[in-house]
């Protein structure tokens, strides 16, 4: 993951990029009937060099929230740790977990003082909000930061129930953007992933179909984008929490894809210097 290309920064880089990079990665997240899928590649690039081929771009925050990161690797790691700490403190103080929307808001406000600096963080929070039971409603109305005090309690309870349960996907970026949605893909490989996802994403996908769609999207992006590659990580978040799928090397997928298309891979040729 590379630094943000502010116009000043790009001129100080000694290796010329073909285009200024925003985030050299491919991460994606989408919501479907079975929860939230978060997928990402594992390549960390630094100005045309692969700094690390096996990076974790998806980090669990708590049992029902994972965050995919993009942008500067160091910044993302730091802010994830800070977020984990803050969420845990909130949980200890208020005896309940902060909603995903609240988490996103908290993160956005924490990043705000650094707007305009070189901090480059683009996170997608993928999680599942636990249903608020009626007994806790009075507590939550008093304490949650999503409510404004002027709105009546009935309306508040309805909106709280609707917005605070089920799968959630929120994109937070160090520019200040905070967007809730059903599908996000971030990084230099994101257009390639979008092309695959837009065509096939349906609410009614089964779990296996959704996983294979996410894998396919990351694979296509790593195939075309130079700054994405190596392996694919996949997390699936449901009401029971997150589950991580085993990291998979996309090299095998590439060979399978070539064979499917009837193209033989000549291993001898690959060793020839070009």
């Amino acid at each position, binding site marked *: 993951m590379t630094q943000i290309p502010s116009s000043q920064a790009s001129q100080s880089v000694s290796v010329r990029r073909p285009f200024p*990079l925003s985030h050299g990665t491919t991460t994606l997240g989408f919501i479907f009937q079975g929860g939230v899928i978060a997928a990402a590649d594992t390549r960390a690039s630094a100005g045309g060099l692969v700094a690390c081929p096996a990076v974790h771009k998806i980090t669990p925050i708590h049992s029902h929230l994972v965050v995919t990161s993009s942008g500067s690797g160091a910044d993302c790691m730091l802010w994830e740790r800070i977020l984990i700490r803050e969420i845990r403190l909130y949980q200890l103080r208020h005896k309940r977990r902060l909603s995903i929307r609240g988490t996103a808001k908290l993160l956005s406000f924490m990043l705000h003082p650094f707007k305009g600096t070189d901090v480059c963080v683009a996170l997608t929070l993928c999680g599942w909000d636990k249903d608020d039971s009626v007994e806790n409603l009075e507590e939550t109305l008093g304490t949650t930061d999503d409510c404004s005090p002027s709105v009546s309690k009935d309306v508040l309870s309805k909106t709280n129930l609707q917005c605070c349960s089920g799968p959630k996907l929120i994109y937070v970026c160090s520019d200040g953007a905070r967007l809730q949605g059903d599908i996000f893909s971030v990084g230099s490989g994101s257009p390639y992933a979008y092309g695959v996802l837009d065509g096939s994403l349906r609410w009614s996908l089964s779990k296996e179909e959704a996983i294979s769609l996410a894998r396919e999207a990351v694979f296509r*992006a790593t195939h075309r984008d130079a700054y994405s590659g190596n392996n694919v990580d996949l997390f699936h978040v449901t009401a029971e929490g997150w589950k991580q799928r085993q990291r998979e090397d996309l090299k095998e997928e590439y060979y399978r894809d070539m064979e499917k298309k009837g193209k033989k891979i000549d291993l001898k040729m690959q060793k020839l210097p070009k």
Partner: protein
Amino acid sequence: MALQDLCNFQNILLEGETAEQSPVRFGKKAASSYERGLRSSSLLDFYIPVAEYLDESPIQFGQISPDQSSSSSDSSLPPGLPLASSQPVPLPFPMAHGTTTLAFVFQGGVLAAADTRSSCSGLVACPASQKILPIHSHLVGTTSGTSADCALWKRILSRELRLYQLRNGHRLSTSGAAKLLSHMLHPFKGTELCVAATLCGWDDRSSSRGAANGQETDLEAMPSGKVSLIKSSFLKQQPCVRKEASLSGPSLVYVCSDGSRLQGTLFSVGSGSPYAYSILDQGVQWGLSVDEATSIAREAVYRATYRDAYSGNCVDVYHVTSKGWTRRTREDLKEEYYRERERQKEEAEKKKLIHVLKT
């Protein structure tokens, strides 16, 4: 003659590095001396705005740096690149050539598809422009970059190919046409000329070549053979049919005004190209039928227009076979978009139903 040119050449060198004194003004200090000599003694006696971005990677042709875009008043270039800092969501890469065009080779010939939106600095200048231009009966070119430049160079190319055909009694191959176009564009390298075309054609060597032209066949075949050696190992995995029949059959070459000339089996050019690439990579194989290939091409352009702001409106699909090119009726993607919206609405209904049942 040659000696005079050489003397001229030397004089230009001796005159010194000040650009203002020479008859042709340059925007860039480090212009090669050959070009300088060429320009001063040739008929090209006008201002050639050699842009500063030449200092950067040649892959970055046609892309204006943010500080330059504000100073250039010429709006003929495709949409001004949005500054990353002014975007609420950072772009994965700056926009280049506001369009989506694609072409690929399969067993039924070559398929070329493109959207029809011409954009200009964020305004849709024309929602029904033609980005795939026929050059002759068996050659079609997709255009990307500056529409004016593309239209002009396509006409020039058609004229040159026709002249070749009349003089030599046979059509020039696609790779020959690509080479011709590339060499014609070369003097303008470094200027603001922006043309990125893929030439899609069907070469017919077996019948029209006489014994006398056997030599030329080899000469023309060699350069394209060289190009194919340089291309990646991915392309080396073509089935045997393709390798032996590289002189005849479907052919696809990408030519661009910064000098690249690449032969391949799948190309997509423009700001919408990444969106199209992922769809094409999934579906394109040699053994597709014509209908399957058409539907993949349509889907790829549709996906690109869905996500890319600078692509849209309608889709054109051209199919080149041994009998020539055929054009599918222009299809408005609005219909496809509404069909998808309907489907999403139905899904949202189902989703609400399930949600209500759960709670």
